[in-house]
């Protein structure tokens, strides 16, 4: 307690320091690298750190000497685990997001209990992203149901946020519960923190979308230690520290503007954990495949950083990418806007950016996917934060005379996302139009595909885990998140064939899929940074890339598209850029909002 108190005092003291001479309230300690999308972070009672690895579908322990002990919870039980917590006797709880379950493990790592939410709360969990356990009970961030559910120690239901008047959570991804039963929520989609007391009454809310200290951009992890609230502020690349009244105490982290930059630089933090004595913190960064430890209470100079990024790294693209007849659209989650490129030329050119953050007509919340309707040339945006489906028309300039135009895209229509059978809103994670103008949408919470015809939702009734979709002329290809296969369907949803995965792919995590004009198929794998090309008959033709940051290398690839020139464009999310590949040739193009590069240009630039 004394140590905790000292910590609070020292953090508070940092406010003064920060005003006079900016320091961070937590010194960088170590980087734990080579993790596979570490998402959730916690400490065991003996002080060891524990992490979920989403892409390995496993849990690993970091020993005192910072060696990773893996696998601690074997792959095979969990699917895309996210949040994790441990109580004082070492019982581990895991938000098994991909299976929509909460799992309990004993201190040896053996599964002892599984709950799906239905029996206890009357409703199945949907993509639960975080869990917290204390002597007062268990809290589950039931993200897909936009609620946090709290249970007593004996497992009986206590309350759920959807019973609280005037509190509407939006995809909460982080939760913590203290010994008194107060629950701390990272209300991710509303960019705020919510504290609810033990009786289920709202005590305090604070925050809004923004970049300045005290504001949030998708807060995703939260931890409370003795009157101090730590928030992993994902899209602001920092950890913010508040008192329980919402007063900002300080923050740490320095935005890593160059991918792989570390040693105190933070990039898309997913979760933050503080050990029992309050002197060690663990920040998980799935985007960088690493976690970093910090020493809260030990002030340090922040890592040196050029606040203006090098040219060519001016954007953090999301994983979304859509190609139309002449153009290409992607999504920048940190500024809530969509850049447009024309691609019917050697070097794609950025010709427009549209979208304004916020709620209300024409505003953009969080883009789940973008799809270009080939029938009427209209761009459809699926927004899972505002729960809207928006149709935009984009006027592209002629390729011989390209110019930038902020007014190039206009909103035609917007409506609420449709509701699925159980009454909940469709939750798209990927979508694509087929050649007849029917939109096929993957619902991430139900693991189902729906076709939208004449405003009606038609489920496909599939029995796999769809994560990416591309609708070609007569074939719809869907990537299976568990097997890495591509399942090929007719436009009516009948299975025609299954292709892949690549023979040497051990732990598939498909990020995107595209059917090329010649009928062959490319799948990106965001876990192993690959582009695998398959013939129409299912033969694996080649792996077109490797992991890294050079031209032709990729890092956490997202969606793929074929551009107007027949190039395979991949959203190289981890390198903040897009790259073009051609079968049998390999890399042919790198571009983004800044500099572009082709093999010829690269060759010339390397000549003395």
């Amino acid at each position, binding site marked *: 307690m004394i140590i905790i108190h000292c910590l609070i005092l020292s953090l508070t003291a940092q406010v003064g320091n920060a005003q006079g001479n900016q320091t961070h309230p937590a010194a960088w300690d170590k980087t734990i690298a080579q993790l596979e999308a570490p998402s959730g972070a916690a400490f065991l009672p003996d002080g060891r750190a524990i992490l979920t690895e989403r892409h390995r579908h496993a849990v690993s322990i970091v020993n005192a000497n910072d060696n990773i002990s893996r696998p601690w919870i074997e792959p095979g039980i969990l699917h895309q685990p996210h949040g994790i917590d441990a109580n004082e006797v070492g019982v581990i709880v895991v938000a098994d997001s991909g299976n929509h379950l909460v799992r309990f493990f004993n201190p040896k790592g053996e599964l002892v209990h599984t709950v799906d939410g239905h029996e206890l709360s009357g409703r199945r969990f949907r993509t639960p992203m975080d869990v917290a356990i204390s002597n007062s009970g268990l809290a589950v961030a039931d993200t897909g149901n936009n609620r946090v559910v709290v249970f007593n120690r004996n497992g009986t239901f206590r309350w759920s946020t959807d019973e609280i008047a005037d509190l509407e959570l939006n995809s909460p991804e982080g939760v913590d519960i203290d010994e008194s039963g107060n629950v701390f929520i990272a209300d991710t989609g509303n960019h705020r923190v919510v504290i609810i007391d033990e009786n289920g009454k709202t005590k305090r809310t604070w925050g*809004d979308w923004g970049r300045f200290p005290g*504001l949030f951009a998708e807060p995703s992890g939260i931890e409370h230690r003795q009157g101090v609230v730590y928030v992993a502020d994902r899209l602001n690349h920092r950890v913010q520290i508040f008192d329980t009244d919402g007063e900002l105490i300080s923050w740490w982290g320095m935005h890593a503007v160059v991918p792989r930059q570390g040693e105190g630089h933070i990039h898309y933090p997913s979760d933050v954990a503080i050990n029992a004595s309050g002197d060690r913190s663990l920040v998980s960064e799935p985007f960088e495949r690493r976690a970093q430890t910090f020493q809260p209470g030990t002030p340090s100079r922040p890592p040196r950083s050029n606040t203006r990024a090098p040219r060519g790294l001016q954007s953090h693209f999301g994983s979304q990418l859509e190609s139309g007849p002449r153009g290409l659209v992607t999504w920048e989650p940190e500024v809530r806007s969509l850049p447009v490129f024309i691609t019917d030329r050697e070097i794609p050119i950025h010709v427009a950016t549209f979208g304004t953050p916020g709620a209300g007509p024409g505003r953009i919340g969080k883009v789940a996917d973008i799809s270009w309707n080939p029938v009427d040339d209209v761009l459809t945006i699926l927004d899972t934060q505002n729960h809207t489906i928006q149709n935009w028309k984009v006027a592209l300039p002629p390729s011989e005379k390209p110019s930038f135009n902020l007014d190039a895209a206009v909103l035609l229509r917007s409506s609420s996302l449709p509701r699925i059978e159980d009454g909940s809103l469709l939750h798209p994670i990927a979508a694509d139009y087929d050649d007849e103008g029917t939109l096929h949408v993957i619902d991430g919470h139900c693991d189902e595909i729906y076709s939208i015809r004449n405003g009606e939702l038609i489920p496909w009734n599939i029995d796999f885990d769809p994560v990416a979709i591309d609708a070609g002329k007569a074939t719809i290809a869907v990537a299976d998140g568990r097997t890495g296969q591509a399942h090929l369907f007719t436009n009516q949803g009948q299975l025609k064939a299954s292709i892949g995965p690549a023979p040497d792919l051990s732990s598939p995590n498909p990020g995107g899929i595209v059917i090329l004009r010649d009928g062959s198929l490319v799948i990106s794998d965001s876990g192993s940074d690959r582009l695998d090309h398959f013939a129409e008959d299912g033969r694996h033709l080649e792996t077109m890339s490797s992991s890294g940051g050079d031209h032709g290398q990729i890092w956490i690839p997202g969606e793929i598209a074929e551009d107007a020139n027949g190039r395979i464009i991949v959203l190289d999310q981890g390198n903040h850029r897009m790259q073009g590949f051609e079968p049998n040739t390999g890399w042919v193009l790198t571009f983004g909002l800044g500099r572009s590069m082709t093999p010829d240009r690269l060759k010339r630039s390397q000549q003395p």
Partner: protein
Amino acid sequence: MPVTVVILSCLLAASPLTDTQKRRIAGLSGAMQGTPDPTNEAWNDPTAALLGQRLFFDTGFSLNNQVSCATCHDPAMGFADGKPLPTGLAKGSRHTPSLLNVAEHRWFFWDGRADTLWSQALHPFERAEEFGSNRMAVLNRVHDDPILRTEYETVFGPLPPLDDHSRFPENAGPHAPSGSREHDAWQMMTPADQQACDRAFSNLGKAIAAYEHRLVPPPSSFDLFVTAMLADDHKAMAAYPDDARRGLLMFIDEAGCRQCHYGQLLSDLEFHNTGVPPSHGGLPRDAGRWEGIKLLQANPFRASGEFSDDPESIRALSTDSLARNSELWGAFRTPSLRNLNQTAPYMHQGQFKSIREVLDFYNTLDTMVVLDHHQETVLKPLGLTETQLEDLESFLMTLSSPKLPAELGRKPGSSPGIDQIETVD
């Protein structure tokens, strides 16, 4: 600077003004006589103004009897204080803005947490770092002072029966620290008595505002140039310095200053975050307008509140319809560019000692606070030459007016209700 640029600049200054230039220039000038304030029926009442002037210079309202409005709004310094940050009972956190032409503003304080001049004037009385007093102590002082009381009751009618100490404590106020005697005493008062005192308190603000409405200096040399321009009086126009004229043309056009600095005050009266580095270094911690809107809309003395004389006025509707977007975080009110010769230092923390430092900031944006590489900004470095910067500064200096009549800048005499002009020494 290349010779050709000098020649071009000279030609530019001498060439006839286009219609667009004339319109834009005319928009920077105009008569300022204190815009009527419908939320304050006493805004143009001479007795109210006299009372307000007494209150303004009276140090007896502060906890240590040494601080008055004039402590920070010193008439000799353009009704500012010449310091980066003010000192009342303690050091403040934002620079003191000038009160010259203050009635022309739409919002008050750097964060606009007051929407009327009278509401603004109430804040210092109860703020710990300014006067450190409490509401009842303030009212009791007016009640117990025969001159103040006479003038008050002449304008606003009788004060509440403050002699009845069983109902009206000597020291009490809603902003006293929680748990303090003053705070508890205020809580013990009946809602009706609290309301009566709030009404009287608001009237003191209205009196101070009536005085501040008069702080309108005579026309500047720029205003005289505009008058001549509108009258097509080329001879009079020629009296305007060439360098200032060149600076003016840059101001309304290529330098882009007019984006935010237009209208008679050369201010859009609204709020912007221009990335001026905080004086404490590091990232800014002051949320500015973001918090200002919250404070304003919770303030019972706002234009749409029960103490407003016109809660349906445009001011009131304007406050009630404010959009609180997070882009307003760290945004501060666009300052007027008039009388800059009297009001250094500049910016919300007095970060820049001189106009030249301000111009240098906008010219390079080298020290601009950019949170990260995603921050989009309207501001681009001006990239002006040394001569162009000098021209801009020359223009800005022509926005300075002759000083106010001396009688507006000092404490009035001791007789109640008599025009102060006759009573000052």
